[in-house]
């Protein structure tokens, strides 16, 4: 099951990498005489109301979502790992204070906070800036969940026999943390990454549905979902739901990869 998930993710990534060659059209090109077309040989998923090729937009949007969401997840997990190591080693009041801060962050209403922060920024930002802002917000605000788990793992490993042995041999605490504890944390960090990346994909979709994610005309899997707002249309033209299918497929593959990770280790 895990292998199937990994292979599917691999195929999706490969397709997105080669999007430049696979995609038949420029995702922003508007074909004025072919608006709202049904699927055909030229347009496998038809065109949208502005006459843009849906298949090309799906590939291009996937490229942005699938690059930026894992990058943001990497940032969040790296922050969590660093914080977990530092505060786990400091212990005492520092660690308790940090745990309180984590709890506070976890108890904030996420969507509301993201909306508020995003609303502080100008609405008509350039597409590139909107991508950077959306995903770095996710990365900077998403450290709390992973850091709690990683902090617990750090405490566990610092109390282990091998960490005690390293202290007995005279290694300073920072060296025990970096040389002895850090390599043991990497599997946990990987699992956290595999959980966080799809969560960020979905968060971006939520923001984009409200028009606060990646800005038009640049496509992302989130803002492509806006076409689904009109429900009767989905019944008439089911191929409009292709971005939803892609998103659901990728998110479940990530989760299956985590399940395999846990069963395997």
């Amino acid at each position, binding site marked *: 099951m895990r292998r199937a998930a990994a292979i599917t993710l691999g195929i999706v990534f490969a397709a997105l990498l080669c999007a430049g060659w696979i995609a038949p059209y420029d995702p922003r090109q508007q074909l004025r005489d072919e608006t709202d077309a049904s699927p055909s040989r030229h347009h496998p998923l038809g065109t949208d109301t502005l006459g843009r090729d849906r298949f090309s937009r799906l590939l291009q949007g996937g490229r942005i979502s699938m690059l930026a969401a894992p990058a943001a997840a990497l940032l969040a997990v790296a922050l969590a790992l660093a914080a977990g190591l530092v505060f786990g080693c400091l212990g005492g009041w520092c660690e308790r204070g940090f745990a309180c801060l984590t709890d506070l962050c976890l108890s904030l209403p996420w969507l509301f906070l993201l909306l508020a922060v995003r609303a502080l920024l100008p609405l008509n930002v350039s597409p590139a800036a909107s991508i950077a802002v959306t995903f770095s917000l996710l990365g900077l605000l998403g450290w709390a969940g992973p850091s709690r788990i990683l902090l617990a793992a750090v405490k566990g490993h610092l109390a282990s*026999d*091998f960490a005690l*042995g390293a202290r007995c041999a*005279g*290694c300073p605490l920072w060296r025990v943390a970096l040389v002895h504890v850090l390599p043991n944390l990497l599997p946990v960090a990987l699992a956290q990454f595999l959980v966080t990346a799809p969560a960020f994909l979905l968060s971006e979709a939520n923001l984009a549905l409200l028009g606060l994610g990646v800005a038009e005309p640049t496509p992302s899997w989130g803002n492509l979902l806006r076409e689904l707002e009109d429900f009767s249309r989905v019944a008439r033209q089911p191929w409009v739901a292709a971005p939803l299918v892609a998103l659901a497929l990728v998110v479940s593959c990530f989760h299956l990869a985590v399940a395999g990770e846990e069963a395997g280790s």
Partner: protein
Amino acid sequence: MTAPLLSLDLSVDYRNKPAALDGVRFDIFPGEVFGLVGESGSGKSTIALAVLRLVEMRGGRARGSLLFEGRNLLALKEREMRRIRGRRIALVPQSPVSALNPVLRLETHLREAWTAHAHAPWRQARPQACDLLRQMGLPADDAFLRRYPHQVSVGQAQRVLIAMAVQHRPALLIADEPTSALDPASQRDILDLLRRLNREFGMAMLYISHDLPSVAALCARVGVLENGRMAECGAPEILCPVDFQTAS
């Protein structure tokens, strides 16, 4: 009579177990093997950790005095204490399987223990470490050093840990039940090895065990711990069959 190497008068409190050690007092002289026996939970391992001033890592607090080479270890700053751990006092831990980090190669373990106190790069010290491993009857080739802890036998892992402990030729080696996880044949080998280290390097030893025959064979003096107090202390003959039953 020479001055004792380690002179200890120690009490340790854990948060959930006050007076885990209650005024335990004994001396170890240079080059002497001192045995410590007692049932599980009597505080044997706590003494080992307290001498290295690491009971805090298990949530304990040590009181009393701990004179080693004329200095009170309990009064030292953490930085000074770190220079003593592994260099002047070293520990051979109880269970070799969990004392080695599962994700690090054997060479990394030896290198870490070496660089904790030496300024010379590991490349220069590596041949010496290989010699040491060879003296302990281990295959000291590259293939062996590249192995991970789960790829060697328990007996081999225990020898690697002993090699790590004696790399800096400590004045005192604490062996905390070094044979309890081993089969009889490797137990005998490890005991021979410890005896040889004691003779060749003149290393004093605090040998903690509940294997009374090995204690009687190895140690010059023996202390019997009972509920955190020193019940008896003297020549190994005190471990006569009557005491045998109370101690084990």
